[in-house]
């Protein structure tokens, strides 16, 4: 059991900054996120896009903002459970909460700050008939152990870096045959990666089917063939042990909806007049995941919400302790040993 003062669900920019503001009040934090890296949307969706509305910073790439936030919170030594989404919240008899992740890791604290943004990132799934039937039986959206594809016939769909990177890897002596299917002639992936795929195709290591898409999947208990519609070649049937549709990730509110919180239009209702508390005492919601009259989904608003919220969390943990607002300019940042 991991024990801390505030469990932060969501390691996006707002979740990260919460660690800083909590740290100034000597509160320790542990962050949980379904993504394997911190940064949330900033890291997963648009790391190379500039942000212009962080006060005092005229322009910063989303990925750099995450790096800077990680530096800013380092003195407060936050814990991380990454690549493992929070699934369940239980309340204990003595007013603590236990948050359990998908893999079963348990975290205990008096307070929870949900900074879950748009929710949990899940794979984008193509609308192909019977897709669910073959999930785990040949259809995989994430590659956890590439060894299981050794000697197999693999079909990959997608035009982004993930699709191309795995096509390169599996076609280089792992799988028996790799077919990469993409609906266009151009790719979203990095040009070097595209060139590498073209080279592997001309060497006969990788089969490229462009201007084509998967229309149907078949098999008995397990996937065995894939029907493809190609602009140039018409209908093609390919024998396949596995189909890897790698179309990136999309956020979903997911388990947050099951935590007994008041939800309005895919967001958690909070009390913005006081401390961004939800209808469950000790559970707060900050950043894009919350809603209240006049809500703006902006990083800078989330930073404000985090700052107000930790004051309330402090009072819950230390009801009798005096607390005064201290300026970092006067006191500096005194991290944890």
């Amino acid at each position, binding site marked *: 059991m991991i024990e801390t003062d505030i469990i932060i669900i969501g390691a996006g920019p707002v979740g990260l900054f919460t660690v800083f503001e909590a740290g100034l009040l000597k509160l320790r934090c542990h962050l949980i996120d379904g993504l394997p890296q911190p940064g949330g949307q900033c890291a997963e969706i*648009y790391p190379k*896009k500039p942000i212009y509305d962080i006060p005092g910073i005229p322009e910063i790439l989303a990925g750099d903002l995450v790096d800077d936030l990680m530096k800013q919170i380092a003195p407060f030594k936050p814990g991380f459970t990454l690549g493992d989404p929070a699934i369940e919240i239980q309340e204990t008899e003595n007013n603590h909460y236990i948050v359990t992740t*998908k893999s079963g890791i348990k975290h205990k604290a008096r307070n929870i700050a949900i900074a879950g943004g748009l929710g949990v990132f*899940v794979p*984008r*799934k*193509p609308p192909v008939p019977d897709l669910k039937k073959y999930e785990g039986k040949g259809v995989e959206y994430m590659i956890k152990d590439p060894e299981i594809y050794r000697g197999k016939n693999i079909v990959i769909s997608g035009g982004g870096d993930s699709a191309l990177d795995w096509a390169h890897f599996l076609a280089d002596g792992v799988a028996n045959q790799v077919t990469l299917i993409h609906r266009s002639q151009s790719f979203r992936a990095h040009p070097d990666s595209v060139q590498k795929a073209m080279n592997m195709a001309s060497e006969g290591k990788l089969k490229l089917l462009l201007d084509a898409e998967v229309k149907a999947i078949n098999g008995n208990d397990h996937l065995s063939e894939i029907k493809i519609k190609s602009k140039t070649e018409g209908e093609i049937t390919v024998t396949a042990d596995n189909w890897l549709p790698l*179309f990136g990730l*999309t956020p979903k509110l997911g388990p947050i909806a099951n935590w007994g919180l008041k939800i309005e239009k895919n967001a958690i209702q909070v009390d913005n007049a006081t401390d961004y508390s939800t209808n469950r005492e000790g559970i707060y919601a900050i950043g894009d995941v919350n809603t209240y009259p006049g809500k703006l989904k902006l990083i800078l608003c989330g930073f404000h919400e985090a700052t107000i919220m930790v004051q309330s969390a402090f009072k819950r943990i230390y009801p009798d302790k005096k607390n005064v607002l201290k300026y970092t300019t006067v006191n500096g940042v005194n991290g944890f040993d």
Partner: protein
Amino acid sequence: METIINITVVDREGTEHKLEAPTDMNMNMMELCKSYELPVAGTCGGMAMCASCQIYVLTNHVPLIRSEDEQAMLDEAWHVEDNSRLGCQIQLTKKLDGLKVELAPYVEEESDDDW
């Protein structure tokens, strides 16, 4: 007011919504739909990175020329037709007065509950 144009959006149930759209607020079609609380997610906020604002253009107002990023995203989206555009990439200008579009099916919401 001359800065207001009229746009029709057909939702996924086939209902037509007549919208009055300002041309002086630097808005795009995705944002317009959201401001009228039509079911458009706009997940990525307008960066042509999610395709949740895909629409079909039903009139000849908008050139069906897509930006490079928009094309790349549509290449990996579903239910894409020749008249598909991403709403976030269509800026509201006076030329669009009388535009009619239809919302593309939203597949993400059906796709799963298995986090």
